[in-house]
């Protein structure tokens, strides 16, 4: 009798877990303002992300070279991932310095328990060896991933999302990112 009860309880538990996973796949967190947008890799996609937030009617401050101190009073950190050599040149820093900066701000955001939204909107142009260190770093700590499909043809972001249990939305075009952003900040 005791053994039967244990089996029934175990079976019900397994079914419940499976049903939850199917019905509520990594439910998306709600994000709060104020929002700070920063870059991971200094691509100009951070400017485009600013435009996405503007169209989604979400107030956001964009600081491509934001430091840990800039997180003061911020509730959501948006990281726009993707490397640009021209962008690094414009910022006047090396790739190593940028990696260190991104690591530091992500660390601080986690310590402050801020929600992190990671955007990858640059498609293939922001993939490859130079970009993927930044992409991985920003994706792994995200509370939510929003990716333009062209940058995920090899499932790079989907694999990270599955492994780290991060909710992910894949959109066809940059302009399609406006709606998920608006929804993420809905009250």
């Amino acid at each position, binding site marked *: 009798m005791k053994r039967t009860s244990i089996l029934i309880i175990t079976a019900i538990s397994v079914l419940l877990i499976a049903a939850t996973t199917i019905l509520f796949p990594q439910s998306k967190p709600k994000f709060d303002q104020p929002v700070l947008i920063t870059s991971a890799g200094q691509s100009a996609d951070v*400017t485009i992300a600013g435009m996405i937030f503007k169209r989604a009617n979400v107030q956001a401050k964009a600081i491509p070279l934001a430091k840990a101190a800039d997180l003061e009073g911020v509730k959501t950190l948006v990281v726009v991932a993707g490397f640009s050599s*021209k962008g690094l040149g414009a910022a*006047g820093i090396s790739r190593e310095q940028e990696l260190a900066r991104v690591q530091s701000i992500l660390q601080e955001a986690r310590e402050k328990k801020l929600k992190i939204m990671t955007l990858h909107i640059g*498609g293939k142009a922001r993939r490859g060896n130079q970009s993927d260190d930044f992409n991985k770093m920003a994706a792994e700590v995200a509370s939510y991933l929003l990716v333009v499909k062209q940058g995920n043809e090899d499932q790079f972001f989907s694999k990270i999302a599955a492994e780290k249990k991060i909710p992910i939305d894949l959109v066809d075009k940059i302009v399609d990112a406006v709606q998920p952003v608006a929804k993420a900040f809905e009250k």
Partner: protein
Amino acid sequence: MERHHITALCMLIVIAVVCTLAGREFLKMYEPDEIIPGPGVTKVDNLSSYSGDLAGTISDTKVYVLDSGKPGATALVLGGTHPNEPAGFMTAVVLTEHAFVREGRVIVIPQVCSSGFTCTDPLEGYPQSYSIQTKSKIRSFRFGARGSNPLTEWPDPLVFLQYPSGQQLSGNEVRNLNRSYPGRPDGTVTERVAYAVMQLIERENVDIAFDLHEAAPEIPIINAIVTHEKGKDAAASALFTLESENLQFALEMSPPNFHGLSHREWGDRSAVFPYLMETSNPIQGRLRGVTNEALVVQGIDRKYFEAAQIGSMRITYDLEGEPLARRVGRHLRGLQALLGAYMESTPEKRIVVDSVPEYEEILARGLGDFLH
């Protein structure tokens, strides 16, 4: 006459024939390309009008003005900054021959580095010219070099000290127009061309300017818009528009510490909103195979196809390649989208250009349909 004299004479005759034929080919590069001003062109000027020293040299070039006669913004379009990047040049030719300006004014310089059209780069095996079938005839255009003709300012220094920044670049970059801005009136020939362009921007009160380029498919900055920081919002807005039409462009910022570039110096030293656009041109790439006229026009290269298949490419590359018509179509559409975004941000300065072929239209009908 002894036998060895006859041999020597034959050799001399053969050498004379070869030299004559080669000389003819060499001199052909000095014959200007035919650009036929369309109904929208209201004035044809020379770049030397803005810097007198260029007059009468192979570095002087035509400036086409398309003026609506109505107030509005003034746009400048440069093709041929690098004469081995034909999509920039051909885009400017299509505008000159086909466009009509309804509001504002457009100034087009199709061959801004005109001396670069008189030679090709050594060791590249580039064709001297390429042909396009139009409705009425076959037109031939020169395929030039990346920089000014070395004969205009021989020899190159070992190290090029960019003026006025003092930035050090490799010696051959001294002939690269897109490292020579703002130029100077008493500098090298390339610096004088750059100076004349800066003078034009100032005197004509240019509001928005485009420098049209191409790059090898493996270069990270292709299918891109490069912007000065003051033009980034308009560029981002244009990118949204282009993306909604299924045209992917990357946005790149102009590095403030990289001097001599059009998008940097024009933006820093004048009121103009400068943009540089890049398309993907296989003939410039290191992976390319057969290098001929067909590669310029059709942009099909088996080696790039193979590279794309093994995932070495950052762009989509299929058997259709990167035809010149598509590259010109991208430039034209990018230019129109940026003009639209500029008008959104500056509604008091309108600029409306009609009769510019749509991207799909130029793909379907071919480039020749939009040339005389």
